[in-house]
């Protein structure tokens, strides 16, 4: 997603007819705003867009010639897209050291970089087992388990509610992320937070594996501080007004409880898709910038945006 954002911004530069730098910057800002507002979950997308905008500001200071600047930006955009795959390999190479022989790993949902890391570990002849959470509502855990089994890594799907049941057998927890926020916390598929809490309670290391272009400038203080949170998420049904209707209708009250409220699609739609994991639950972050402690993330972000 962040890569797609950058790609589309590069495309914009290619077709931009702006003549002054400020006009050019304005159009880029507009476009990134439009991108962000067009999707429901804009976190990873805004990471990419912000990173690219920041880069544009930097280059525009360095390069005096406007045309050359545009050329330079387009090239670097392409470079990044090419690098994205290489970056993941680098992370996998770094992360392999965290997997011990004969270990049991717990992963959550599906993440390309975590998959690559585990496959890399298997290629290094490390023997290990993987528990994958089903991770409702996307059920992407099933996809992960299929990929892992195909790669010759024994993987078992567990229900999201069974995390506490297996945690004692687990040696380490690995998750990917949609975004890493300024204090080193994670934004990831729903369920990551509870996984982290359980891992902390059981004293198991909790590793996050992420590409550095997913670092976002957000500082959420709690779950409801996320840009993805809206007031209709997990709203309580308004029973009062319904009670009033019931008393009017009288005896038929039981049929009056709306059956459609309990349809799976309906309540899933009213549930959050991502959650925020505070940094104190994260042991280490494995990124292409090296292995970082959660506090190291803010340093990287400051370096970039100072």
């Amino acid at each position, binding site marked *: 997603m962040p890569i797609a954002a950058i790609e589309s911004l590069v495309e914009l530069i290619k077709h931009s007819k702006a003549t002054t730098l400020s006009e050019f910057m304005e159009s880029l800002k507009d476009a990134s705003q439009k991108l962000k507002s067009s999707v429901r979950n804009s976190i990873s997308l805004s990471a990419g867009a912000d990173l690219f905008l920041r*880069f544009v500001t930097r280059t525009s200071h360095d390069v005096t010639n406007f045309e050359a600047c545009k050329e330079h930006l387009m090239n670097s955009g392409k470079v990044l897209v090419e690098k994205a795959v290489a970056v993941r390999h680098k992370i996998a190479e770094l992360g392999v050291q965290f997997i011990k022989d004969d270990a049991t790993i717990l992963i959550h949902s599906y993440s390309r970089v975590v998959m690559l890391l585990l496959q890399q570990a298997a290629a290094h002849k490390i023997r290990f087992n993987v528990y994958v959470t089903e991770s409702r509502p996307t059920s992407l855990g099933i996809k992960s388990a299929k990929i892992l089994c195909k790669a010759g890594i024994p993987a078992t799907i567990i229900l999201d509610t069974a995390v506490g049941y297996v945690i004692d057998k687990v040696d380490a927890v690995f998750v990917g992320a949609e975004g890493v926020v300024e204090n080193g916390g994670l934004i990831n598929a729903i369920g990551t937070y509870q996984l982290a809490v359980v891992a902390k309670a059981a004293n198991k290391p909790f590793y996050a594996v992420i590409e550095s272009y997913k670092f976002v400038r957000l500082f959420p203080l709690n779950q409801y501080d996320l840009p993805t949170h809206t007031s209709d998420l997990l709203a309580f049904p308004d029973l009062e007004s319904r009670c009033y209707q019931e008393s009017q209708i009288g005896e038929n009250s039981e049929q009056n409880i709306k059956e459609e409220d309990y349809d799976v699609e309906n309540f899933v739609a009213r549930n959050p898709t991502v959650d925020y994991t505070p940094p104190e639950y994260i042991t280490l972050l494995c990124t292409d*910038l090296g*292995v970082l*402690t959660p506090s*190291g993330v803010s*340093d990287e972000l400051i370096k970039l945006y100072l």
Partner: protein
Amino acid sequence: MTGPRDLNAQIESLVNRLRRRQVVGSWSVSLETALLLRQVVSVARWNQVNVLINLVKDVGGKLVMAQPRELAVGNIVRRVLRLIRDVYNSEVSNSNTNLTSTSEEVEDDDKDYEDDNVIKSPPQKSKTYDLQSYSGPGSIISSSFFSSSASMINLLGDGSVSGKEASLDYDRKCYNLKPTIISELQELINELENMYVNIADQAMEHIHSNEIIMTVGKSRTVEMFLKTAAKKRKFSIVVAETSPKYLGHEMALSLSQAGIDTTVISDSAIFAVMSRVNKVIMGTHAVLANGGLISVSGTQMVATAAKHHSTPVVVCTGLYKLSPLYPYDEDSFNDLVAPDPVMSFDEGELIDKVTILNPYYDYVSPELVSLFITNTGGHPPSYLYRLINENYDPEDTVI
């Protein structure tokens, strides 16, 4: 060390002494390593920096392999490598006006840089790592920001130096770098020699009158630290005896001879006594990148007891003990030594029937440590990653 002897013989000699455990202790090991590497830099013939880097890596690799438990060896090798890279980079940026980051240095004439000038004046960047002239966190932030330029932006840029390009970059011919590198190395050696004094100078800030302080094991750094404080303040020390080597006995003897009120307790009494203790001050064998400690066995127990009583744990350590390695596997840094001190061989009959393990080190996780006092000042465990970025190059983590 500076005799006419063959360089290889010197390397071999240090390797053997490391292997036979004839040089022990992080400090003496790192001093010897630094001296040897200075010799390597000055004796070897090289005209390209990458040749020198490979040479140092090669020698360093041998030393690390000789005694992998002494993490300080690797740390010094990495420091030296970083120092060489910095000297080279500042040389290149001085002579190359095209680089963007040099915009403020460019004001002077180009010719100036080609002269000996470069050699005499220490390069700008290296000042960051010159720990003697440490002048507060502010300076470090700004200069490290400049030196490494933003690494996330490297993803996008081809303008700035990033990972792989940097290593290819070191092949420029440089003939005049040797004196600079050697003088920088000398500063590193000086830093090592003044280590204890620099740490002990901070003692007055941390030890107050009538405090009860607990310590464990024997550490020269802590010893100096406490003795310096004792010159002006009156406080008492509780020393855990640290079986099975009973290093605590030696420590207690030395402290009491300096006139400090000292009490020795058995290790099993640590938890009981902890409730009366104001502060735990201890040394360590090595500090890992996340702030975890590799320290004499018994430390973990002291740290956990301190946590239970919310007693602050202060760790005194020189920067040379700070390693960029992570505790991938806690046991891999440990050593099982001879079981003789636990149960001596005279015990005859029993010895056949039991398995005796005598691990030498403990791993203490960073949550249990409140503060590190290094020769550059006090730092919380969460700050260590920055010290690592300042002192080591990420490329050198694996030697």
